[in-house]
């Protein structure tokens, strides 16, 4: 039953994809040259082009102007995928290299955040005193947009790359911290009592009772953090510049190369999905049936 359901769902997804592509194709079909051009002086046409419009295209609308059709998209995609790792200087690198830079930043910021958040979450979860004492700080710091830290980071760190990593760090820390604290605080009393009656050492209790008991909750936090980190890296790289998939999007926007922008958008989505899938797997591995 589930197999047939999965099959039917897959079929429906495929149909929807075809529908979207079909609409896209129809919407970008180049019709006959539009009328407005005829009654425009060459200067007016030049001016319109300077404004980013393409009056020689269809309908004089911004919809057509420069928006790529499917064939163009396919060509761009193929070109990117055929040589993802070329490097022709600072503004012309393959998407593979850009993606690598972004993933590297996210990984570094995320790991640093985990190294801080999980031990700290343990402390907060185990000690009601620490929980109460740190709660106001967490509540104030948590809702701050990670990008708001950027100026402060740039000023104090004086290095845009490290500032990017710092922004990832600061945005991934909160879900991990709160989930770890919650997971640790809600470990069942009976398991702790078992450990107590067996005179288990605090370290062994932390690693063999609390950690596995709280692991599903901790991993949920890590999964949320990873999702946020991947959202934030694109924006951060647009600000910081230099390298990364976010910078690539911004750069291609400046080049007015919409096919490249669209390709990058899809790529960001696919990579984000794969990251999430990875954490879903990890989560499944540590989840226990009670």
């Amino acid at each position, binding site marked *: 039953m589930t197999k047939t359901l999965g099959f039917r769902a897959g079929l429906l997804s495929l149909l929807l994809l075809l529908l979207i592509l079909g609409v896209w194709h129809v919407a970008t079909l180049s019709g006959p040259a539009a009328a407005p051009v005829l009654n425009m002086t060459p200067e007016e046409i030049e001016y319109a082009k300077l404004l980013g419009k393409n009056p020689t295209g269809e309908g004089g609308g911004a919809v057509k102007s420069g928006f790529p059709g499917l064939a163009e998209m396919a060509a761009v995609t193929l070109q990117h995928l055929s040589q993802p790792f070329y490097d022709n200087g600072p503004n012309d690198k393959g998407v593979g290299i850009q993606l690598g830079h972004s993933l590297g930043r996210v990984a570094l910021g995320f790991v640093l955040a985990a190294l801080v958040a999980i031990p700290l979450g343990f402390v907060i979860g185990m000690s009601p005193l620490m929980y109460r004492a740190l709660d106001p700080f967490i509540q104030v710091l948590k809702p701050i947009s990670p990008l708001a830290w950027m100026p402060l980071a740039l000023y104090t760190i004086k290095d845009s790359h490290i500032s990017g990593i710092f922004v990832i760090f600061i945005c991934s820390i909160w879900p991990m911290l709160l989930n770890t604290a919650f997971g640790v605080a809600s470990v*069942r009393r*009976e*398991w702790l*009592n*078992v450990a*107590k*009656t*067996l*005179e*288990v050492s605090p370290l062994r209790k932390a690693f*063999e*009772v609390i950690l*596995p*008991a709280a*692991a599903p909750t901790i991993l949920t936090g890590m999964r949320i953090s990873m999702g946020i980190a991947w959202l934030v890296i694109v924006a951060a790289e647009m600000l910081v510049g230099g390298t990364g998939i976010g910078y690539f999007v911004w750069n291609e926007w400046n080049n007015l190369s919409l096919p490249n922008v669209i390709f990058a958008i899809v790529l960001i989505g696919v990579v984000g999905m794969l990251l999430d899938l990875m954490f879903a797997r990890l989560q499944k591995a*540590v989840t*226990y*049936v*009670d």
Partner: protein
Amino acid sequence: MSTEFLKIEGLAKTYPGAAEPVFDSVNFGIARGEFVCIIGHSGCGKTTILNVLAGLESASSGHVFMGQREIAGPSLDRGVVFQGHALMPWLSVRKNIAFAVRSKWPQWSRAQVDEHVEKYVALVGLASAIDKKPSALSGGMKQRVGIARAFAIQPRMLLLDEPFGALDALTRGTIQDELLRICAQTYQTVFMITHDVDEAILLADRILLMSNGPQARVAEVVKNTMSRDRQRANLHHDPQYYRIRNHLVDFLVARSKDLSHGRAPAQPLEVSPGLDGEPEAGSSGARPDTGLDGRAKIVPLRHVA
């Protein structure tokens, strides 16, 4: 009394904010190798007493001595079987018990631990399920693992907090038999909470009756006068069984609530229903009928409270 292995003196517990203690002046003793059940209505503090014995809770006043030493905090000397089996669901049966075994003997090799674990899993008849996770086991099997875990650390005393409360009657019977057999084999000293009068009569050498809270006390100690090799199958053919049973049920149904608020004696009376005539409980309320024909007085009540 001084030869007693476990000795509880003047134990009392008042929860913060409560005007009256849940229980006070609780005095009793348990001899080595003895199986003692405690029965009382909900809220009289049985579990608290057990937790104090386990070292998980501290009493407001009073002392607990085990083997001449005062109990302070939890210890591997006392194994606990929890009400809800309290197995760790992410570990298999083998690893759950190995967790306890490694706590007791950290210096043991992996092979030694494994051998010991297998021995105790076999003791409760779960050898075929040793590598299963608790979620794949039935309630009765889980509780067996809990019992195996408590026995595996070879404690000097075993504390059981209503271990069969969540099990159906048939499963309960089988595990009761198993517990009886293992205790007989190991001469284990056991303190057990139960709500089941029949279970207490089958398992216990002595049954402590607690009056209702607040200010509950161990009001009476009922000696089980039946032979120690009693079996579940022939238990109810012994006329003594009904005398004891009626005595217990009468206490729980009629007398225990009149003994709340500290009206029970601080030093419990020891009674042997049917053998020493009427119990000398100085309280008011219905007198237990332990007449000649016990069968006439069967109260159709299995679970009290």
